[in-house]
């Protein structure tokens, strides 16, 4: 890639050096034989045009090579967030008897959602359809090849865009599994996820990111800013997680029986991988290796840092000690909250958003959850639902046209984007986007839970749950320490 790019740059330089020579050539020819100049000049001009066209093509190829290299790496980084990132993060938080089942819930989605995506998922998200959901034109990935789709990313193969977006579609349902950890029946959960992917994720992704979508920030009826998935990924998954936790009911023994994480070490590794993977998630959402990607990368990192300090600091004040679990949970909360904002805000706003999310999500899981008594086992709602909502709203406050000039008037003049810039109405649009995501997640999840429950039964039996899902659902144990 780099070689091709270097070759492109070299050719441009060559062209710049050569131009004066050509410019002089006709003049010199004219001086000696003015009458015979015309056919010679025409030939020169056509040669020149051909070379220019070739050069333009090579420059475009070099540009595409750079963007494509970056986007393929980003796609891999986002997949790494699910496995091993989320799998370890969640796996460490459950009890020992459920570690494998919890990891499997994430890993299985890497396979299941991929198949759904190929059949119809990508199409429902990104093919032209109505404002609410995409059409079937890309079913079985028909026509999704190496040619770019200028509606989304003009410099990379559509196939790259497709596989990058797939990684988002994988991690989103995987996030839900945190709220119903340690008690779901595997078969029913997979059915739930297939339906959820089609009925909740696809419409939301289409509304926000799809061409012609209701909430699309260029041309949608309610232009909502969501750079990398605050509404599409985190609100839909977090709110669905809350609905699922309420529908499933509490784990056997909750809250009387202690259920501390069996290995904060695993969670620590998972959260650290999530932090790195999130650069692919947010910076990659620029869909090019450009300055906006850098800006999103920086914002992402700064928000994670301040949220870490926010959560751990709040704990320190309240309990007298900053915990490791608090620090890593804070980082994830900050990463969640900056997701919608990452391509619209600068580093200072990112620090503020992270801090608000770190403290806010801590209060959600430590105070609000205890008050209402629901069993959101691994705080999928407390972190993703709450963090996503905070982030989506604050995006409307802090978005800056100097970071990302998304709005123009018909004459092409750049318009203010966020509230602090003078576009107060944006907060309203953000709230509309948030509300639609909440309603879709609540209604969609309830219907799907009911279907999965009637067909299979979503919850493991009490015996299965007490025995542990590793043995009861998969016939394995995470730690066979006696095995020699």
């Amino acid at each position, binding site marked *: 890639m780099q070689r091709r790019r270097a070759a492109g740059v070299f050719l441009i330089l060559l062209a710049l050096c050569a131009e004066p020579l050509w410019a002089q050539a006709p003049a010199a020819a004219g001086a000696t034989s003015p009458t015979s100049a015309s056919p010679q000049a025409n030939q020169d001009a056509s040669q020149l045009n051909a070379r220019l066209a070739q050069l333009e093509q090579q420059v475009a190829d070099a540009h595409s090579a750079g963007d494509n290299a970056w986007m393929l790496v980003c796609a891999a980084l986002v997949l790494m967030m699910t496995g091993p990132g989320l799998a370890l993060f969640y796996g460490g938080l459950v009890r020992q008897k459920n570690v494998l089942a919890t990891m499997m819930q994430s890993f299985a989605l890497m396979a299941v959602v991929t198949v759904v995506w190929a059949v119809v998922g990508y199409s429902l998200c990104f093919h032209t359809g109505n404002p609410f959901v995409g059409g079937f034109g890309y079913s079985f990935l028909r026509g999704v090849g190496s040619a770019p789709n200028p509606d989304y990313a003009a410099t990379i193969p559509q196939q790259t865009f497709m596989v990058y977006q797939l990684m988002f579609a994988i991690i989103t349902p995987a996030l839900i599994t945190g709220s119903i950890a340690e008690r779901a029946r595997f078969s029913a959960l997979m059915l739930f996820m297939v339906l959820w992917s089609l009925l909740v994720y696809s419409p939301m992704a289409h509304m926000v990111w799809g061409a012609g979508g209701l909430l699309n920030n260029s041309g949608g009826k309610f232009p909502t800013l969501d750079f990398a998935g605050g509404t599409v990924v985190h609100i839909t998954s977090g709110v669905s997680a809350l609905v699922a936790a309420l529908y499933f009911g509490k784990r056997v023994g909750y809250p009387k029986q202690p259920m501390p994480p069996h290995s904060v070490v695993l969670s620590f590794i998972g959260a650290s991988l999530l932090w790195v993977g999130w650069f692919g998630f947010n910076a990659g959402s620029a869909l090019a290796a450009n300055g906006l990607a850098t800006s999103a990368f920086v914002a992402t990192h700064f928000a994670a840092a301040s949220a870490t300090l926010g959560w751990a600091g709040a*704990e320190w004040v309240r*309990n007298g000690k900053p*915990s490791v679990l*608090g620090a890593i949970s804070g980082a994830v909360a900050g990463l969640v909250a900056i997701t919608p904002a990452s391509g619209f805000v600068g580093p200072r706003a990112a620090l503020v958003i992270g801090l608000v999310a770190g403290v806010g999500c801590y209060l959600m899981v*430590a*105070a609000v*959850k205890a008050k209402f008594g629901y069993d959101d086992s691994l*705080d999928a709602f407390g972190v993703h639902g709450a963090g996503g909502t905070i982030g989506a709203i604050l995006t409307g406050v802090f978005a800056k046209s100097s970071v990302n000039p998304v709005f123009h008037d018909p004459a092409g003049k750049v318009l203010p984007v966020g509230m602090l810039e003078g576009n107060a109405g944006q907060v309203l649009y953000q709230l509309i986007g948030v509300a639609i995501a909440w309603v879709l997640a609540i209604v969609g999840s309830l219907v799907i839970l009911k279907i999965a429950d009637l067909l299979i039964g979503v919850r493991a039996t009490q015996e299965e749950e007490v025995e542990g899902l590793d043995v009861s659902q998969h016939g394995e144990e995470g730690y066979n320490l006696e095995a020699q």
Partner: protein
Amino acid sequence: MTKIEAIIQTSRFESVKDALKEAGIEGMTVTEVRGHGRQKGHTEIYRGREYSMDLLPKTKVELVVADRLVETAIEAILKSARTGKIGDGKIFLTKIDEAIRIRNEERGENAL
């Protein structure tokens, strides 16, 4: 013959092992155990939820010795296991009727 069961602070195990060796006691069986006596446990907090951990990790050392060596062994353990704080553990003694070496069926003190 007497069985000595000493439940000690895990952090003192290495020095107990050395002290017993110095006192000429050969052989021991060691188990990682959890428990509590009069010592209170501690609280752990995960995402705002408090868990009181009253079963603490300890190390149990078991050895069977000839009766004439019992006091030597006890003294070695007492000296090496003590930190002076609550939670240092306990020693229990039991009479042993018989001991048999599996390899050659030797019995009694010879089997120790």
